[in-house]
């Protein structure tokens, strides 16, 4: 009896892990293959599967070539600048907007919140055409600001900050008001420090999204020196510079690695940040 239950448990666990491993292979195989091809100094086995899932004559030849044949460091610099700009913009706008929506009573607060949430329903992609024309008038074509500013005010960030600020105990705010603090001081000295984990989650999400943003930057940035990794590497890989498949894979791996490293260090925020959004 006990044996039966035990063996059934082991069977169940085996099935459980088999499912997990099978799915892990499904999610990881494309990048695994890219890494393996990039690391193979000898590309002859690239299309002989499954041999190509393991590097042939491993070496860093193609990775070195990425630096010499592609403006990889320029792309990296552009990605960094634009991601930081977006994070700063989103956090400032969301924190400022989230506070009154969460804690101040004023005429129209409900309406404004509903309007902000409704923007999630609009196909923002359609707005690309008018936005392109707007950017032309603002002389922001081929500028970092033009590529990032449309993402500063997003319903997701405002919603997340509103949720976070609603959790702050009212006593803290009352005490500060009695002490004569202005609303700006309350926001800066009390709400922001207390909600630091949520702000960090928002910042991390935004950073990853900005880093990976492809479509809008590819439209608005016209010169190669301004392109971020997601656009520059893609163009180089699929356009006239696509000379060697091995170099393509090396470049892909190098583009993904910064995000993976960042993700490894901040993983817990991805679940906790989502947690806040769901509740």
């Amino acid at each position: 009896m006990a044996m039966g239950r035990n063996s059934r448990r082991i069977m169940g666990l085996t099935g459980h892990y088999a499912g997990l491993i099978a799915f892990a292979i499904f999610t990881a195989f494309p990048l695994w293959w890219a890494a393996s091809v990039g690391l193979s100094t000898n590309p002859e086995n690239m299309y002989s599967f499954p041999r190509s899932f393991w590097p042939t004559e491993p070496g860093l030849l193609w990775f070195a070539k990425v630096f010499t044949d592609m403006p990889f460091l320029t792309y990296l610099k552009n990605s960094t600048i634009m991601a930081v700009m977006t994070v700063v913009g989103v956090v400032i706008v969301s924190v400022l907007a989230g506070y009154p929506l969460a804690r101040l009573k004023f005429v129209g607060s409900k309406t404004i919140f509903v309007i902000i949430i409704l923007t999630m329903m609009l196909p923002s992609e359609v707005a690309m055409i008018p936005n392109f024309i707007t950017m032309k008038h603002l002389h922001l074509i081929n500028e970092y600001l033009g590529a990032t500013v449309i993402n500063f005010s997003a319903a997701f960030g405002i919603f997340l900050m509103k949720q976070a600020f609603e959790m702050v105990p009212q006593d803290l705010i009352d005490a500060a008001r009695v002490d004569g603090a202005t609303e700006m001081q309350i926001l800066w000295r009390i709400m922001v420090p207390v909600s630091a984990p949520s702000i960090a989650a928002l910042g991390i999400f935004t950073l990853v999204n900005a880093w990976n943003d492809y479509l809008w930057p590819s439209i608005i940035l016209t010169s190669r020196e301004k392109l971020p990794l997601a656009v520059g590497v893609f163009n180089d890989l699929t356009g006239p510079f696509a000379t060697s498949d091995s170099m393509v894979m090396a470049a892909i791996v190098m583009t993904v690695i910064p995000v993976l490293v960042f993700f490894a260090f901040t993983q817990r925020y991805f679940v906790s940040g989502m947690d806040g959004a769901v509740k």
Partner: protein
Amino acid sequence: MRFRTDLCNIKIKLQSSYAVKNTRSYAAIAYLFLAPALILMGVFTFWPVGFNTYLAFQDYSIADGTATWNNFAHFKYIFHEELFWNALKNSLLYLLIVPVIQLGALVLAKLVNNKLPGMTFFRATFYIPVITSISIAGVVWIYVYKYDGMLTWLLTSLGLLHEQIDWLGEPKIALYMMMIFTFWKGIGYYMVLYLAGLQAIPSEVEEAAVLDGANAWQRFWKITVPMVKPTILLCTLLSTIAAIKVMQEPIVLTKGGKGDTYTALFYVYDQAFRNFNFGRAAAAGLVITFFCVLLAIIQFRFFGEKK
């Protein structure tokens, strides 16, 4: 003691007088704080809706910015164009992915929602596609789908296929191949959302069901699904919107192919930024916005009743 009550009274008085005095200045402060968000949304979200509607009825020249009324010409054109209808049909077909990705994500979340060893590793692995840029991931998947690529190899070695297929070049299957890519890219995102929902379920519920002799299948449908229903609704809404708005997949994977992988928004993009016909693109965009809003209303109605 007396002193303390006094202090309390003062505090209450102060608070109430503050509240009365400042109702109006609160509104001023509130709108001041909201100003950056509202101005940016106004310029980059709401103005485009209006301007797009205007553009849809004009012949617009991007070079000198002149617009001339053209008497519904764009609408007449797209309503007779097979490419546009095909694109619209493909976008609606893309909705097939919603139930698949939701069920998959929920099952996956269930599998990693426990304290067995290695779960952090699996969660991270499943999330990798989400944090990979779509353009970069797309390049690798082009190699997966090449006629002599990984998919052909896999199916051949399983004995299911005896010829080489250019998976993204076959009009009948290319769209479904794009859906598999979307599934791969997005499932981790919904998994994390479901994980947050699942962690709110007390473990006692499931333990009790196990004692009552419920098997895994019964527990999944009778306990897990009902208890994460709010998350399911949210995720379904999100993924429906994402599916109807799909456009980056064709940009990255096929450039639209010969029309077979055009989606509605890809058509808009194609007309605007490759054909430079901003007016026609705006007209098509308006039709799609209409569909999106309609879909959102239907879903809100549907979910509203269920709740």
